[in-house]
């Protein structure tokens, strides 16, 4: 036998070994459950991971939200039914958090309801403008694409610490202010400025990611369509509103949902940058859940679980509405 033959036979043997083992197993499974259920069989590995790391924690969360005490193990936790939810909603006037038994929850909710729309609108607006600029034939386009994406690669802790150094009393920004003769400002001490910088820093940190998605969406719009619009006497504004935006809508929807979910989840940057302060001015929902469940003694897992489930439900409903509206508009 020649060397080539030996090698090829050995290769063939090795290649076919898994097939020889798997084939009878697969045939057996198929006989057992029927061909129609075979897709489920192939989905088992993925479904297992989803069950273990997504569905199971949700169910455990539901259990924790319906039980009380500061004990961690399920068998030690007494059943309290909907009492945690009742505690969260125990308010005399929902518009005035100080009348609520859990005023911090309502303050965090109010902050989140203010932060998310502002941050998402700023994020998408700036990401879209950046993507539109980067989609043009400009000098150093590759460099700028890298520059805008760079913050996305940074750890949230690094982002927060960097901006803290810039914004603190003796930070870089106040250094510049002093150099040009302006009075230094305690940026993170006043509620309004702290809120502004919270939005600014989170937009700065994540904008690059959405810019790249929008840029890919812009590049997928055929050049011919723009040329046809040019022949059709369309002004730049008409091209943007009548061609670019409608054709970018599916991508914008993805960006909107992703950025909204990410915005609601905001925690790490702000926890390090402002700690939720001053007072509770920049405390968002996830930080409240963390504080109530892990930081403040005694730890109230039940209340934290209830708050996180409410947050999840709100996100789910909002995303579903958004998807529905978008599909209706697309088919309409």
């Amino acid at each position, binding site marked *: 036998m020649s060397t080539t033959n030996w090698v090829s036979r050995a290769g063939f043997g090795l290649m076919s070994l898994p097939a020889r083992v798997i084939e009878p197993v697969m045939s057996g499974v198929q006989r057992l459950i029927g061909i129609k259920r075979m897709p489920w069989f192939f989905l088992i590995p993925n479904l297992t991971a989803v069950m273990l790391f997504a569905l199971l924690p949700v169910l455990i969360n539901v259990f924790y939200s319906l039980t009380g005490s500061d004990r961690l193990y399920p068998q030690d936790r007494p059943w309290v039914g909907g009492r945690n939810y009742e505690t969260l909603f125990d308010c005399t006037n929902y518009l005035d958090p100080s009348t609520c038994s859990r005023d911090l929850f309502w303050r965090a909710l109010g902050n989140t309801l203010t932060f998310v729309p502002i941050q998402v609108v700023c994020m998408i607006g700036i990401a879209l403008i950046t993507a539109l600029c980067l989609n043009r034939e400009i000098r150093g386009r590759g460099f700028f694409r890298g520059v805008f994406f760079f913050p996305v690669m940074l750890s949230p802790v690094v982002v927060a610490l960097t901006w803290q150094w810039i914004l603190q009393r003796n930070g870089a920004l106040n250094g510049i202010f002093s150099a040009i003769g302006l009075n230094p400002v305690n940026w993170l001490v006043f509620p309004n400025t702290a809120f502004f910088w919270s939005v600014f820093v989170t937009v700065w940190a994540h904008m690059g990611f959405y810019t790249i998605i929008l840029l890919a969406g812009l590049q997928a719009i055929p050049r011919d369509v723009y040329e046809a619009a*040019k*022949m059709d006497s369309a002004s730049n504004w008409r091209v943007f509103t009548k061609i670019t935006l409608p054709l970018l809508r599916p991508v914008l929807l993805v960006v909107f949902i992703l950025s909204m979910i990410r915005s609601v989840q905001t925690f790490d940057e702000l926890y390090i940058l402002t700690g939720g302060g001053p007072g509770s001015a920049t405390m968002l929902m996830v930080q409240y859940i963390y504080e109530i469940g892990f930081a403040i003694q005694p730890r109230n897992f039940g209340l934290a679980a209830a708050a996180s489930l409410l947050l999840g439900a709100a996100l789910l409903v909002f995303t579903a509405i958004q998807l529905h509206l978008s599909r209706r508009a697309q088919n309409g």
Partner: protein
Amino acid sequence: MAKLVLEKVAKSFGLVNVLPGVDLDIEDGEFVVFVGPSGCGKSTLLRLIAGLEDVSSGDILIDGDSVTHVPAADRGVAMVFQSYALYPHMTVRQNLSFGLENIRMQRPEIERRVGEAARLLQIEQLLERRPKELSGGQRQRVAIGRAITRDPKIFLFDEPLSNLDAELRVLMRIEITRLHERLGNTMIYVTHDQIEAMTMADKIVVLRGGVIEQVGAPLELYNQPRNAFVAGFIGSPRMNFVEGTIGEVSGETFTFTSPDLPAMTLPRRTASLAAGQKVSVGVRPEDLIVSKGKGSGWPVTVSVAEQHGANSYIHCSRPNGEPLLIHQPGQSAVERGDILNVSPVPARWHLFDASGLRIEIEPGQEMAPPILHTAIQ
């Protein structure tokens, strides 16, 4: 009136000189086809006329006015793109009216124009559909309709039929020709398909490497190609070329010799022939006299006989293996391996010099009218 004049129009992309300098006159109402192989610059030339690309130098004049620096939308031209370039999110009606809304035309006038274009192209029932709900042919009509509503001086078509299947292409070819007859506008049509060029054009512009090789009516190009490139490009199937040298030149005749073929005496139709001159004889597949067995012509062996029913295409090889194609009307009795004797129909052959230029025929010695019946004798 829409007369288009190109004066030394040149275009470079970086260091690549795509069009070195084109001079061309297109008369009002003409249907002109730019034809040439891929990369010859025909689409670039069209885009320069449209205003989608800036010229590097030269001037473009429409009705005597320079439009070289006029924006695309203000040139009075409309373009039908190869990919149709319909707005996918708009209905057909919106596609047709978008350009008119952009110039703030009154709504009743928009409705009138859209309705008229839809009627002309028989797409009235499609007006509320979106492009994705249309077939290729319907999309093509909408793309043409969009151009019509703008009532342009000049229509530009950039390979508009290349995405359609063969049958639809023939239908649309006829429709566009009819449309030209009805509208009477100047139309410029780019294609690499010489059949489209031959069947649709009033005037064909053959391009190669950004240079115009010849401009003329379809049959003028077919019967009097200026060089071997045009001779080979115009006509399907393409012209046969036999390279060789001029042998003996006498008063009325000359001999043509090719290394693998017996010498052939041909009538002399020009004074500019010298013994030893390298030339090639070009003969169209339908201009060959064919006989079976031995004869005084060139012996060729049949390799494939394509029977199309109404026509036969006999692919032969010369003794040196070079191909030679014979076109015969009707059905042929030849079979693979048969030896045929071929010779050009008198006065239906072309002579090109070593550089590929046609050796001009002297007055009174013009090409004979085409002879279609070359059945095996």
